[in-house]
Structure formats: structure tokens, C-alpha cells
């Protein structure tokens, strides 16, 4: 593998990893603190993208960048307050099914308002130019901007968790959720805020990514499971874990994509030959690159079986 390829893998992997991080950092907090497997998390991401589109269409992108996540956050907090909180007493399965139902509702609502086809959500002109060029491949300023923002998000959350009272409560509830309630904190309000904040993070990711991956009603469905992989692999409630896990997944996936090795080449290397017309060739001729989509899920299963608390988690999933 040439150095050039390696540079690309690292660069592309980082970019993709940071996208995953942005997407899942909110859920890390929600899942970690409240134990809610929020299936609608990617739906909030989608709402963020649509609101980002709508606001930047009517006003401009920068306003959207600030207000769209806030709107999503308020929406999330409202849903927590008037929906999830009442369901909490029925257990986690009920909560999860509620978010499942929410997922359907949001998807249809979005289709009702913005239609079934992608909306023309554009990268802001001011950032729409190639910034870096590595042997013929250029990276636009906008993706660097996203990279910086996601790093800032990481630092901000990290600081909030480490320095503020809210952070202290959140961290305490990660290890001992019942105790915090017993200490007389207004846990429901903290929960609402955390849920809203987590949703706002998803919304922010939506505003930033919607104009790159395309803003359309099925985007939530496709992103749902991968978010869980990041959250679980990183460890419940660990923002550092989410970052590391995202980057690992990004790197591994980019690496496998660039590998054109298949079992046939290994068998050839061992001195055997597979008949290209035989059934078995269908299996042995699969390249690593074609298998790259299953990598995250294998990672998920291995982590959960071998180390259920994830990379940096403090308690088991």
C-alpha cells in the first residue's frame, strides 16, 4: 500500500468518523443517562437537516446553524416532557417502542411538509470551494468546517461534563441513576434538558450534513442502526468513547473499502485454484471492500460479547 493511499485512508476515515461522532454524540448522552434506546435519534437528525434547509432558504445558513438545532432541541425536550416521561414507568421497552412510533410519525410528517423527494439544500456559497488538495483529490472548505465544528462539539461537551453542575449530575447518573434522584435533584428536568440537548446535537449534525448527503425522508431510516454501534462501542455516556469509536469505525470502514483482496487471492497464494463458474466462487470472490458494510455490526457484536461496557464506559450496557 502506497503512502498516498494511506494518507487518503486516514483523511477520509477521519472525516467520516467525525460525521458519525456528530450524529451519535447526542445519543451517547441520552442513552447513557436515561437508558433510552432512542430509535428516533436519526429522525431528529433529519428534522435538523430539513429545518436547516428551510431556514437557509428563507434567511441564511448561519442563522440556520444556530436556530435549527435549538428548535430541534426544544422539540426533543417537549417530547420528553409530554411523552416519554409518562411512559418511563412502564419500562425501557415501552420507551423504546414509543420512540419507534415517533420515528414513523416524524418520517411521515416530514413527507407531509416537504414532500417525498430530496429538497435542494445547498452548501453555503462562502464555503463552497476546494481548500486542500492532495494529489488530485480536493477537500472542500465545508468539510473542513464540519470537522472543526465537530471537534468543538466534543470539547464543549467534554468541558460541560467535567466542569459544570449539570455535568456532575449527568456523570453521577451514569454510574448510579437512582442515587441522584434520591439526592433531591430535579431529575425529570435534568432528563428533559439532556434529552433536548441530545436532540439538538442530532439537529446540528443534520444542519451540517444534510447539504452533503442529501436531505430526503429516508435519511433517518438508513442512519438509525449505525448510531447505536457508535454509542455502544464507545461506552454508555462516554463522550470520549463515542469520539474514539466513531473514528475507529470511520477508519476501519475506509480501510476495508480500499482493500480489493478476496479469498480467491489467498487460495491462489496457497497454490489452489477456484473454478470461477462454481458456486463457491460466489463466496470466495467477495472482496473485503464489498464486505465493508458489515464491519460495524461485527464490531458491535464482538464488543458486546467481549466487553459490554464498551471502550470507555463505566457500566455495562
Amino acid at each position, binding site marked *: 500500500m502506497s503512502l498516498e493511499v494511506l494518507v487518503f485512508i486516514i483523511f477520509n476515515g477521519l472525516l467520516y468518523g467525525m460525521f458519525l461522532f456528530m450524529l451519535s454524540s447526542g445519543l451517547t448522552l441520552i442513552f447513557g443517562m436515561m437508558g433510552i434506546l432512542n430509535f428516533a435519534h436519526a429522525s431528529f437528525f433529519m428534522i435538523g437537516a430539513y429545518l436547516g434547509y428551510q431556514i437557509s432558504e428563507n434567511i441564511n445558513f448561519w442563522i440556520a446553524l444556530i436556530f435549527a438545532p435549538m428548535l430541534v432541541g426544544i422539540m426533543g425536550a417537549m417530547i420528553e416532557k409530554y411523552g416519554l416521561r409518562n411512559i418511563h414507568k412502564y419500562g425501557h421497552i415501552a420507551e423504546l417502542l414509543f420512540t419507534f412510533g415517533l420515528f414513523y410519525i416524524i418520517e411521515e410528517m416530514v413527507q407531509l411538509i416537504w414532500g417525498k423527494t430530496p429538497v435542494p439544500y445547498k452548501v453555503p456559497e462562502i464555503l463552497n470551494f476546494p481548500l486542500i488538495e492532495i494529489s488530485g483529490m480536493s477537500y472542500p472548505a465545508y468539510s473542513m468546517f464540519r470537522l472543526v465544528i465537530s471537534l468543538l462539539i466534543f470539547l464543549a461537551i467534554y468541558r460541560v461534563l467535567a466542569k459544570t453542575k449539570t455535568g456532575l449530575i449527568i456523570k453521577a447518573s451514569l454510574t448510579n441513576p437512582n442515587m441522584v434522584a434520591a439526592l433531591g435533584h430535579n431529575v425529570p428536568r435534568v432528563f428533559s434538558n439532556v434529552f433536548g440537548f441530545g436532540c439538538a446535537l442530532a439537529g446540528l449534525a443534520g444542519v451540517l450534513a444534510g447539504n452533503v*448527503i*442529501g436531505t430526503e425522508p*429516508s435519511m433517518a431510516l438508513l*442512519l438509525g442502526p449505525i448510531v447505536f454501534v457508535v454509542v455502544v462501542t464507545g461506552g454508555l455516556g462516554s463522550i470520549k468513547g463515542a469520539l474514539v469509536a466513531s473514528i475507529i469505525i470511520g477508519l476501519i470502514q475506509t480501510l476495508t473499502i480500499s482493500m480489493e483482496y478476496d479469498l480467491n487471492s489467498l487460495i491462489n497464494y496457497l497454490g489452489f485454484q477456484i473454478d470461477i463458474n462454481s458456486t463457491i466462487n460466489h463466496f470466495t470472490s467477495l472482496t473485503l471492500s464489498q464486505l465493508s458494510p458489515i464491519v460495524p455490526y461485527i464490531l458491535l457484536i464482538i464488543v458486546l460479547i467481549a466487553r459490554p461496557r464498551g471502550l470507555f464506559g463505566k457500566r455495562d450496557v
Partner: protein
Amino acid sequence: MKKIIFTLISFGCLIIFYACEKKETKGPIKIAAIEPLSGPYAAVGKDIIEGIIYSADVINQNGGVNGRMIEIIPMDNAMKAEKTTELLRKAIDDGIRFVTQGGGSSHALNIIKQLEKYNSRNPGKEILYLNNSAVTTSFTNKDCTFFHFRFDSNVDMKVAGLVSHMSKDNSVKKVYLFNQNYVYGQTFRETATRMINNKAPDIKIVGDELIQPFGKIQDFTPYVTKIKLSGADSVLTGNWGPDAFRFVNALKDAGVKVKLFGIYISQPAGMAAMEKNLLFNDVIVVKEFNPTNSKAPNWYKEYEAGHLDAVGYTPDADRFRFMLEMFKNAIEQTNSFEPLDIAYALEGMEGRSIDGGKVIMRKDDHQIHFDMQALLLVDKTDQSIIYRNQDFDMSYSNVGNIPVKDITLDTSCNMKRPK
């Protein structure tokens, strides 16, 4: 106790069932259109249904077919194969004799196989299947049946058209195959490899990629990197939907210049997500007609204007129009509404095309044939592409006419004809 309640509830459900049972009605000629109208593929299904309904409306406004109107009955299969089966059975129950479908090959195959059994078991009550867009080659080869007619060119023909055009283009030396890893993408890739090797031996295949399909991949940059590193000057792709528009956008973002050859890259449903990024690279697609043909005959211009008015976009496919026109002609020729007679009439029937040529339904395998157009996306010239009331300020420019002989392929179809 539990059992009694259970029984009561089942009775309740059944009463509702009974209320919902429908009676067969005479009147309009009903065509069931089974397409996804909800879920992630709703946009595809909606476009097809709207196009067909508009074409039917045009026929109805001109007096219908032998005095009867055509009524399109949309049915939502939510892109679930089992639902297609259910809906087909429902359509049969409702006495509908004609079915059209196009979104999703698995559904088409389901319909073909179901009807094959049904039609052989119920002579005199046959159902005719008008396939509007399902392109799997086998439907008019080993899986061909008498009651299936395809009004879209199949994958092999499309690839043949693309390769035929590429072989005339001197700038194409090294091509990269980029397809989705499922049956359609794999067929596309195999056919392309074979045809390039046979018909355009000068073109070298420098890469061959199968990606996870249906929008699961968010970031195409790694793939773009691979293409860049392979030194390809053009990419041949069958991708559609998000897999197409994210790819186009990623190429633009990375500033990688290649010629893009494809079928569904410029689907209007995805155009909003690309807009002018489509013009960064030369994008060439093959179609049955040029949707922005300024020299189109007047009757078509009227049709187009009406389409724009009725559903808010310019037609992207001409096949819905000629499908229903040929259907109408078949009824008028035979003076019968029986699917069997109509099917015989459709064999070998000719229809009109807007670019001057003809469309012909080949008798051997019930596959439509026509002159294909190689179209390059350019800035707006005369007519522009409009979709859902959004004007993209882009047009197609005809860069090559692919004569029907170039895309006429042998068929392995060995059809059993009734009677």
C-alpha cells in the same frame, strides 16, 4: 372467559372484513397500478403513478377507448414483496383484468410468477401485466410469459446502448465500473464487462466496484479516492437514488473530473440534491426519448404542457404515454376488452415516438424496442427540466442517436402462447 372475548373480537373483525368486501363493477377499464406510495421509495412510485394517470386522462379526454374510460387504481405496496402479492390478489378479487407495475424488479417477478400460475389455472379470466419500468433482463428471457409486456428497455439493452455510445467516444479510454451490490447492479456490471470486452476492446476496465445499495452509504469520498487513484477517465454506473446523487456530489466536492455514463443518474427525483453539481462532470445517460427536445412534434408539446400543468413537472419518461396508447390501439384493433385478445394485438405493435422513430413491441419476447438517445446534461437551452414546480435550469442535449439495431439483443425466450 378469555376465549369468549377472543371469539367476540374475531367476530368483530370479520364483520368489518365483510363490510369491506367489494363487488365487481362494470364501467371504466380498470388498471391496477401497484407501486410504493409510502416509505423510502414513495417518490419513485408517485412519479410513475402520476405519469400513468396523466396519460390515461389524456386518452379519456379524447373520448376514451371504444367508449370506455381508463381508470388507474393506485395500490400502495410500500416496497414489500408480500404486499405486492396481496394487492395483486385483491385486484383479481375486484375483477380488475389489467395490472401495471414498474418500481422494483422483485415485485415485477412476483407478479409475473403469480400471474403465470393464475392465468394457466383460470383460462378465460386472464390478467394482463403491463410492465412499465422493471428492467431485469430475465423477464423477457428465461422468465418470459405471454401475459407480460415490457415497455421499458431492459438492463442489457441499456448497457448495450451505453457501450455503443462509449465506443464512439474517443475520449473514453479507461473506464471504472461503479455499481450497487444487488441483483440489478450485479447484472449491470456483468453485462457491461462482457459488452466492453466484446464491442469496445479498446476501452480498458480499470476498476470494478460493488457498493452497499439503497442509500446506506453516506460518504462516497473513499470511493472517489479509489476512482481517482485508478486513473479512470470515465465511470460507468447503474446507480440510482441516493447512491447516485451522493456519488455525483462527492465527485464534485473532491474536484475529480471524469465522464459519467449511466441510466438513472439524472432521475428528477434526486436532481434537487445535486442541481448544478450535475454539470461539473459530463453526465451522459441513455433514455427512450429526449425529455427536453425542442424539436418535438406539436402533439407532444401539448402533452408536455398538460403534464406540467397537472402534476407540476415535465415528463422524464415517455413510456407511460406510449404504453397506454398502444394498449388503447390494441383494444381498438381487436374491438375486445379481453386481455387475451389485447395481448395478441400488442405483439409486434408499433407506437409513435417523439424523436421521429418508432417504438416496436417485439413479438418473440414482448420487449419494447426503440432508438435510444444518448443525452448529455447541459445548462438550459430551450426547454428545461422541471420537477415538482422547481425549474432546474438544465436541459438534455442529444449527443448521439443509438439506432435500434445496436440494442437489439438475442432472446432466450421460449414463449408458450395460449389457444
